[in-house]
């Protein structure tokens, strides 16, 4: 089945978008995995309509119930990747989660900002010089070489799988986290915490906190779940300072891909997330009338 719209994220932006697309009779699916930053907000006193304010958790959970009550399909599954499928001149989006694969005519990224950003010394300076966020895009440059993947979750394993047939060896670096269950001939797992990534103009070695070192040519960042930055980079969505660039219709540079809420930057308020979700939905309703 092809969904008219798949929304990634169940915070105020994603839920608001779904309310409008569903009411416009669009076949709508929400996929979410990590909880919204809203859930952690203790008391929200600046959002319209609550005389004594409301706690973030209640507002968040009520939003999901509201969407479900309206008939929106809501699934809690970890999203691993989004791919483009161009068929008959029409673009479809293929979303792979840990459990399923879904196809959509349009997608909305309402995925929030990533909380567990990699803060290892050297990462920022060596981006594009051996530090990569996309195994499928950049694996090619490391054919028969030794590479590393930073992370320990499903997303890190998905990136590792994209690399094992290309690279000579893949080292999964959990950076102090628990080792994942994963076995392959050319894969090793190191759980030691990382101090720094070093290299003159390109990645040369990883230095661990215990001062031991590992020589490597490429490092693929895949810590935690796939966040907006990783998903965007894989699809070719334009980013600015790691935020998704959108126009006033919440369109990204890719036709059929919309973004709203915290992942687009701005002032990170519930009210603006709701507004952006609404605009994204109305743009999609218009887009699908014209294109499909």
């Amino acid at each position, binding site marked *: 089945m092809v969904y008219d719209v798949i929304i990634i994220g169940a915070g105020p932006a994603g839920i608001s978008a779904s309310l409008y697309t569903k009411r416009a009779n669009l076949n709508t699916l929400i996929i979410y995995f990590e909880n919204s930053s809203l859930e952690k907000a203790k008391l929200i006193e600046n959002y319209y309509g609550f005389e004594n304010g409301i706690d973030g958790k209640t507002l968040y959970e009520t939003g999901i119930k509201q969407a479900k009550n309206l008939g929106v399909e809501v699934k809690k599954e970890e999203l691993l990747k989004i791919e483009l499928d161009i068929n008959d001149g029409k673009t479809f989006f293929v979303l792979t989660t840990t459990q399923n694969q879904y196809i959509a005519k349009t997608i909305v990224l309402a995925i929030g900002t990533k909380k567990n950003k990699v803060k290892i010394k050297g990462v920022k300076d060596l981006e*594009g010089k051996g530090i*990569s966020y996309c195994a499928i895009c950049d694996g090619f*440059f490391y054919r028969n070489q030794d590479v590393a993947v930073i992370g320990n979750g499903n997303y890190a394993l998905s990136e590792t799988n994209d690399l094992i047939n290309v690279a000579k060896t893949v080292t999964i670096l959990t950076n102090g986290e628990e080792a994942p269950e994963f076995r392959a001939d050319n894969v090793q797992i190191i759980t030691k915490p990382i101090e720094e990534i070093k290299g003159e103009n390109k990645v040369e070695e990883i230095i661990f906190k215990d001062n031991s070192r590992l020589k490597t040519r490429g490092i693929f960042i895949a810590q935690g779940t796939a966040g907006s930055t990783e998903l965007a980079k*894989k699809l070719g*969505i*334009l980013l600015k300072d790691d935020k998704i660039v959108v126009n006033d219709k919440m369109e990204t*540079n890719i036709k059929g891909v919309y973004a709203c809420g915290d992942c687009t930057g701005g002032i990170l308020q519930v009210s603006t997330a709701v507004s952006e979700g609404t605009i994204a939905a109305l743009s999609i309703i218009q887009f699908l009338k014209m294109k499909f």
Partner: protein
Amino acid sequence: MSVLKLGTDNFEQEVLKNNNKVLVDFYADWCGPCKMMSPVIDEIAETKTDVKVGKVNVDDNQELAVKYNVMSIPTIIVFENGIPKKTFIGVTDKNEILEQLN
């Protein structure tokens, strides 16, 4: 101007021996983000007629990719007098690139 196909055979003549700015897009056919960048490169070639714009397919020209440290695609390099002056890694805003061509 149309986008020039660059490779090891013509890179020296078209880029390194060129006294003006030359925009070079390193890409591959299988790279999704490169496909998003491709129409932008075409637009730049059409509007900036005073600048040479070319594309290097990294599959066919690995030595060029290695020479200019291209380890992620798309990578766009602006050459001036044959020397790389500015590198953009990943999908980049058209205006940001145009600023480097003025």
